[in-house]
Structures are given as C-alpha cells and as structure tokens.
C-alpha cells in the first residue's frame, strides 16, 4: 500500500553514526527500511530513506516526532513525509 510509504530526508554536516542512529529509531518504531541512498550535495550530506510504516503500531505523528528529535540530537535536519506527495507532484 503506497499510503504506508514514507520518505525520510536527512541533511546536514556528515559525521559518524547518522545511519546507525536513524535506523535504530526506525527499528524501535517498527518501520521497515526498503531503500536507502546517500549523496554529498554542495558539501552537505544528504540521505534519503524509503520506509514502510504498515507494520508499525505507532502513528505517523509519533514516528515523525521521534525522527525530528533524533535530528535535533544529531544536529541534522530531518524531514518525514508520506511518499504520496512526491508521487503526485512528479508524475502525470
């Protein structure tokens, strides 16, 4: 179900442990990671993560809040959005 898919976008200064920290939060909240990609853009570390929240017993808001707190802890900006917005905006 596409409505269970979320995209987590992480950006900021590269450092040790970003992937570990974010994936441990996702594991704790029952989010299945389906794909991860990362890149450096204009000196900025960026990571994109496709997750499935269908099997999670937590609400979207709880997952988003947990990720935002992790972002603050890491000093990174984390956006958590339902994937639908990208599908709708970029496909005819």
């Amino acid at each position: 179900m596409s409505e269970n898919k979320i995209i987590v976008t992480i950006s900021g200064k590269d450092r040790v442990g970003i992937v570990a920290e974010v994936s441990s939060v996702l594991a704790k909240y029952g989010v299945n990671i389906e794909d991860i990609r990362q890149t450096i853009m204009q000196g900025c570390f960026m990571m994109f993560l496709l997750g499935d929240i269908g099997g999670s017993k937590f609400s979207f808001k709880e997952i988003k809040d947990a990720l935002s707190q992790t972002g603050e802890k890491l000093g990174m900006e984390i956006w958590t959005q339902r994937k639908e917005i990208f599908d709708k905006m970029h496909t005819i």
Partner: protein
Amino acid sequence: MSFFNEKSIIETINMIKVHNLDIRTVTLALSLRDCCGENVKEVGDKIYNKITKYAKNLYSYASEIEEEYSIPIINKRIAVTPISLVGESCKEYDYVYLAKVLDEAAKEVNVNFIGGFSALVEKGCTRGDNALIESIPEALSQTQRVCSSINLASTKAGINMDTVKKMGSIIKQSANLTADKDGIGAAKLVCFCNVPGDNPFMAGAFHGYGENECALNIGVSGPGVVRAAVENLPKNADFGELANKIKQIAFKITSTGELVGRRMAEKMNIPFGIIDLSLAPTPAKGDSVAGIFQAMGLEHAGAHGTTAALAMLNDAVKKGGIMASSYVGGLSGAFIPVSEDAGMIEAAKSGVLTFDKLEAMTCVCSVGLDMIAIPGDTPDSTISGMIADEMAIGMINKKTTAVRIIPVPNKGVGDYAVYGGLLGEAPIMKVNNLSSDIFINRGGRIPAPIHSLNN
C-alpha cells in the same frame, strides 16, 4: 518495493522550504439554506450549531495533513450561503446579529475568516439584499472574522448601477467605522462581477446556490516557486519556453493541492469540491507576483509589458493546473493585490505602478483591483466610478473581476496603511480627482452586452 527519485524529493522540499510553496487555504463550503426561520434568534442558533458541527474538526484535520506531507496549510476557513437569503426569511431583519453569530462560530472552530456575508444583486435587490448591504459597515466593524462580498454585475445581467452607487458609500462607511485600524473593514469587503460560487479565497468566498450541501474547496499558491523557476531559465529563453516552464510548475503545485484537498475531504467525510490554483502572493520576501514580472525581464511591475506578462502568466498557470486536477474552479489564475505583495508595494511606493496601470492589468488577471489603499477623503461617487469601471471590464470580457479598495480614514497620498499578517501594508495611491458624480447618480442598470460583433 516502490521507487523514489532523490532529485524529485529535493525539488519538493526546496519548493516548500525555500520558495514558500503552501496550501493557502482549506475552505469548508457549507449551505445554510436549511437555517431559515421567522425568528432571527432561532436562525442564529441554527447557523451556529450547523457551522460548529460541520467544521468541528476542520482545524485539527488540516494540522494532521500538514504534518503528514510537511506542507504548510496557512488558513482554515469557512464559506457559507449568502446570508442575505438566510436572513430574509426572518420577520424582522437583523443582519448585524447574524454577522456576530458567524463570527462566534468561526472563533469556536478556530478559523481565521468566514465568508458569505453576501448578496448576489447583479440585476436587482430584494428587501433582504438591501438590508444586508445597509448593515455591512456595522457588521464588519463589530466582528473580526466575517468577510462580505456583493456581486454587482454579470455578463448575462449587466451592471446594477443603483447598488454600485450605494457600494461607494458602504465601502467608505466600512473604512470609517474601523478608522483606528486604517479602515480594515473595507479590506474585508469585495464587490464582484461574474462571481464564482466555489471560490475558497477571502474576502470573496461564499457557498453558491448551485453547490452541494457542503464541500471542501482548496486554494493553492506558490508565486515564489514560479519566480524561482523563471529566474533559472536563461535570459534569452523565448516565450514558448517560458510558458512551458510555468505550466510545469503549475502542474506540480496543483497536484499537491489536489492530494491535500482529497485527503482533507476524505477525513471530513464530505465531497471534494474544487481546487483553486491561484498565484496568491504574500508579503514574504520572494513570494511575489511582481517578482515573477521581474524574473521575466521587466524592470518592475508597472513597466510597459506588464499586462502582457500577466496575461501569459495567468493563462499558463491555468493550462498547467487544469491537467493536474479533475475539478479546477474558483478564481484560478494570478492575483495582483497591492498590500499583500512585497514587490507590488515597492513598485507602488516608488510611483512606477499606478492605479490606472493596475486597472489595465485587471483585464487579464484572475480577479481585479485588490487591496489598494486610496485617500480617505475620496468621494463616494469616485469609489463607485472605480467599481463601475471594473464591473464593465468583467462584464464585457466575460470574466470575474472584483474591487477591494480601502479609503484609509484621515490619510492621504504619501501615507501608509498597515494591516499586518497576510493583509500586509500599502502606500496610499493617487486617484483621479475628476468628478464621476452625475454619471453615478443616474442609477438604473447598464444593460447586458451583445455577444456578437466582437471588436
């Protein structure tokens, strides 16, 4: 396993974060026709109960959707049946009381504006219409959230000049009764020609007679996104390329709005009405329609070529948007409010954008003379003359036009009117001092125009 594209993700986040893409309004459109009755207090109770019942979750659901897609939903609003119709059912009219009821209901459900303190009088007025119009200045001065609109003309009916005359005075009184706030009453009042019944934007939103019991209408915006896209094109890109780029961006903005609108309607368990894809500027830096003209290559809004730029922009926005949604409606196009657009404010302040140029631009924009501050001592008949001109443009060109001008009490050219928030601030513009008095005092109706011999 599903697919994602990093470039698309970055583009979307940039549109929201850097270029102010937002859902400008989710508007619950609600019929109040079943609230009629002989006793005005009972009618008020029915109105209050119906609005608070239907709109109970409007704010919280909109906040949830905002979280899910990380896209700001700036305003949550309500549009109701023109109140002239509902209030007319009472034995004794008390439209100011009904306005207060609307205000209370809007406050209870946490919406910032409620539209529909309205009358549709393009051909003539009923007793209720007249009573509502007379009550507008008091109603707007005694409420915070109520917006009023009057349809004075249409291509099929002509222009109701009796009421055009009256509205000059009503606008002035509305400003004077709110003199302590630079005449903000007049900023919540708009006169229309060919008004749409499904517009989600204020101050002109109301729930039209041919509409559903209720619907969720949505207004999307994004002048900043369009400006950035145009700026990124090479300076020698031709107009075909320019129009194409604007269409692509309008498609993306509208698709997002459609998604939010449908999700919102689903949550509220009401039908999705329309999406209004309007480039509605805000005073925020860069979120400006005037900024798009500059990105297109004009020195500033008001330069010769501005009307052509606006015509192309308005048309390309509609073409791109229409592909992205099954139901496009409302005022769709590009708005040119002065006080709400930092670039327009700057152009008006430096004198390069004049009232007359703005009037010419309204021939091709999606609405009309919008949020223009004029001297407080402008005669009523001059204001009526401005309304008549704008109604004529709409009537002949078969388009919606509108007038929302504010004669700012005790202020003149060179002064400023300051409203704050989305309403912004405006330099007071010079108006033509010639008299329109005898013309306006003729009264009657300008007949509907012929639909052939189009020259």
